[in-house]
């Protein structure tokens, strides 16, 4: 007999996500992923100044803050043929690196760890043994028996108060938790330390962008000026601050995050290194230019596609080709004017917002019909996974030495075969491995910035085409980046100096979307098939795999005119 279970809300994510799964003989046989919230940012964008768009779309997501702003300013610069100064590229790269480190560490400890770490079990840990294990994992100084004993006392008092707060009603004691009590206690300690640390690295954004979340960006460069002999711009003190933040971050990543990841993964690799693989196609747009955004061959994260897990071949992707990336709506709450069976490239996107789901309150979605506010993007008709694993696999297949080395290092540290990459655990490990790279790269970009300034280049903005009078009557652009959660692109059409169309296809649209008209599942749904469920009342296993993607479902956004004729679409997660 098949049993339908519903997990809604999926917590410890960004946004509103619902999973319905069918279970037979203790395993998931089908799954349906639904985005249950829409905001409609696009009508708001239509007719506005393209130079303002970054601020609107940055509000698509406050967790991966900055990434939409970056894609947006790039789309406008691409449309208008603007080239930004090298310092602006470097500062954007530094903000990118800071975002990755903060976001991935928060994901690991605060969004994902409770799927693997049993907080209640930590109460029975032996502090001395915990200290011994911690010291064997890394030389992070906070590892004395007294430290763990104090922490345990604090945790005990908390639990005994009866007010469990964020830990209330977790799946504690579930048979799928496998860590020894001591490793659980280390996990809890670092949960709290990471919470305190993450607020530091974001100061890189504050220095260059004035605040975090939602730092400021600028079409044509970055808003902050450099003046070594002024006290109102980026000077030696500000730069020293950035350097310190990057160095501390690298220490935290290498001494806390990576050792914890390896330690936890070892206990789970035998099963979770083979569960949750899902799709076999991986897409990355690549990012972190060394020689400008227009030279993708210089990117630290390479661009390309891996099909059918074949790491010997890299396939190029062209976001401007109308035949490559298209969006479908067979199971989404929309209509297309020429029928719902065609796909549309984002520059020609069209959306009729059309809710056909059950009237709330409801128990189940109509999964045979439409069941999500997300559209379904496809590359040449194929479903693609995006995210850290895709970046590592594309980089590996592209022959990128740094990526090949870190992946090989990771596999040997875990004593796991290459196949283990294609799994729930592989996704979680890939996130850690790329963070290790980014921690190094941040300091490389910093040194390049210092060298540039030393050589007399202090430019941070190119204002040649700031004035709309210099723009053509019509222009189209696309801005590509790699959000922490995967490939992100914004497409813009500018007409008469205003936004005529603006669309986003974001990582969670690729990963979390409903199936297409041919019944091909997207990444979340496919990855759940075959997952064992020990207790349908406590579907911890679903959380593990879904969290391994780091869901981010801020909204599915759609453009339409004042008469209610829906014209354009955007999805943003």
């Amino acid at each position, binding site marked *: 007999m098949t049993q339908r279970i519903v997990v809604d809300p999926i917590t410890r994510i960004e946004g509103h996500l619902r999973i319905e799964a069918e279970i037979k003989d203790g395993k998931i046989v089908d799954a349906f992923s639904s985005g*249950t919230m829409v905001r409609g940012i696009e009508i708001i964008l239509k007719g506005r100044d393209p130079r303002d768009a970054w601020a609107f779309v940055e509000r698509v997501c406050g967790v991966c803050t900055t990434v939409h702003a970056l894609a947006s300013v790039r789309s406008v610069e691409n449309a208008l043929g603007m080239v930004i100064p090298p310092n602006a590229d470097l500062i954007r790269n530094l903000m990118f690196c800071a975002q990755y480190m903060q976001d991935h560490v928060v994901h690991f400890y605060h969004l994902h760890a409770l799927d693997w770490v049993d907080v209640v079990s930590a109460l029975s840990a032996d502090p001395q043994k915990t200290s011994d294990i911690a010291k064997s994992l890394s030389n992070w100084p906070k590892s004395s028996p007294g430290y763990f004993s104090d922490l345990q006392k604090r945790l005990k008092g908390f639990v005994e108060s009866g007010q469990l707060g964020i830990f209330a009603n977790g799946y504690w004691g579930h048979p799928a938790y496998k860590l020894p009590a001591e490793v659980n206690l280390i996990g809890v300690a670092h949960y709290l330390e990471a919470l305190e640390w993450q607020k530091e690295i974001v100061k890189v954004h504050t220095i260059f962008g004035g605040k975090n979340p939602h730092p400021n960006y600028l079409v044509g*460069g970055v808003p902050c000026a450099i003046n070594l002999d002024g006290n109102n711009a980026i000077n030696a003190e500000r730069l020293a601050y950035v350097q310190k933040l990057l160095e501390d971050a690298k220490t935290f990543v290498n001494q806390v995050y990576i050792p914890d990841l390896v330690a936890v993964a070892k206990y789970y690799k035998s099963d979770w290194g083979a569960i949750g693989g899902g799709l076999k196609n991986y897409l990355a747009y690549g990012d972190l230019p060394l020689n400008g955004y227009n030279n993708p061959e210089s990117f630290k994260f390479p661009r390309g596609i891996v099909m059918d897990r074949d790491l010997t071949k890299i396939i190029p992707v062209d976001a401007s080709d109308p035949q490559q990336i298209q969006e479908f709506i067979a199971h989404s709450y929309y209509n297309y004017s020429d029928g719902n069976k065609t796909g549309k490239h984002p520059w020609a996107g069209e959306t009729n917002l059309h809710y056909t789901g059950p009237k709330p309150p409801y128990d189940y979605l109509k999964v045979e019909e439409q069941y999500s506010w997300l559209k379904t993007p496809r590359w040449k008709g194929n479903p693609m996974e995006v995210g850290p694993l895709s970046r590592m696999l594309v980089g590996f297949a592209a022959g990128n030495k740094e990526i090949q080395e870190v992946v090989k290092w990771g596999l040997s540290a875990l004593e796991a075969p290459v196949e283990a990459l294609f799994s729930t655990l592989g996704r979680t490990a890939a996130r850690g491995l790329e963070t290790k790279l980014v921690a190094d790269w941040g300091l490389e970009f910093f040194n390049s910035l210092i060298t540039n300034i030393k050589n007399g280049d202090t430019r941070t903005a190119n204002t040649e085409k700031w004035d709309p009078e210099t723009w053509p009557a019509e222009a189209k652009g696309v801005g590509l980046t790699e959000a922490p959660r995967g490939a992100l692109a914004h497409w813009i059409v500018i007409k008469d100096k205003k936004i005529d169309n603006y669309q986003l296809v974001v990582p969670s649209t690729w990963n979390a979307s409903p199936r297409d008209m041919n019944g091909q599942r997207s990444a979340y749904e496919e990855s759940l098939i075959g997952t064992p469920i020990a207790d349908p009342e406590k579907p911890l296993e679903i959380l593990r795999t879904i969290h391994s993607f780091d869901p981010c479902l801020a909204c599915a956004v759609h453009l339409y005119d004042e008469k209610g004729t829906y014209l354009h679409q955007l999805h943003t997660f």
Partner: protein
Amino acid sequence: MNETRPTVYEELQAKGHSRRDFMKFCTFIGAALGLESTGIAQVVKALETKSRLPVVWLHFQECTCCSESFIRSSHPLVADVILDKISLDYTETLMAAAGHQAEATLKNTIEKYKGQYVLLVEGSIPTKEDGAYCCIGGKSSYDIFKEVSKDAKAIIAWGNCASAGCVQAANPNPTGATPIYKLAEGKTVINVQGCPPIAEVMAGVIVHILAFDRIPQLDSLGRPKAFYSSRVHDTCYRRPNYDAGLFVESWDDENAKKGYCLYKMGCRGPNTYNSCGVIKWNNGVSFPIQSGHPCIGCSEANFWDNGPFYKHLANFPGFGIESTADKVGIGLGAVTVAGIAAHAVVTNIRKRKEIMKGLRTTDNNIA
């Protein structure tokens, strides 16, 4: 308050903290609120006799930037807030439970602590299409809000979404995104404005309720006066440049490198009430203007529709109008406002001369 729950002091004792630690903590809170020593004594008394406050954090139409901002708080630290000061019983961003276990936690808190819990709302509520634009656990966000707000001791609206609808409520507001005070049926809502609000402002509002057992004084828009009573313009360290008529004219120009006023680049400081110039961001590191970008006015209702950001509309407070507020103005000059309107400008010639003189000295040093 429910007497069966231990007080904050008792809990700290149980966790092995000394009286001294406790006093330190109280002083810290007092300092965060800018209190004199007599006020700190009041904090001590309050926390000795009060238990951990049950708190429910709901997420509707939002981007989670408010939650992200909250965890950036440096004083108090957010780990200390959620472990020692409040009992954060429901927040989709951080809670361990999911699905019906999460829903059960919410139900349990609002029933067990009826009239005692504080409700925090992040996000606006869509009122069109029977609420289908935002559903959680199959229920519309409006229904959830009605159920949870009914017996809340206090309601806080985090950020511009919950306070004013933010970006999704900008013209023409496709989903009917509505700020929660419009749906709170007469209950007082504390609007903690900003996109997002400053971390220490968020923590400060919670600490205020916790320490004094009452909500902070609010302005006519429901914003706590402690954090929203002055304009960014009036607390901006670049204000002397404005008074002196020294402006950035173009991105990365010489004036930008010198840190002149960003008014002509569209700065909304003159009509934005927030603490950015005082508390600054991320533990005082910087704020938008200090990092070279104009204020976009993110703590004001409808700021998205007051664009474009890099221009001022004709009716925007600016030169001339400001002169009445700025009593130090001495001389008169004339400047054209970028783009739309020209106003008479009042310039503090003396101040301008002083600043210019200072900068010339700097230039000489460079040479």
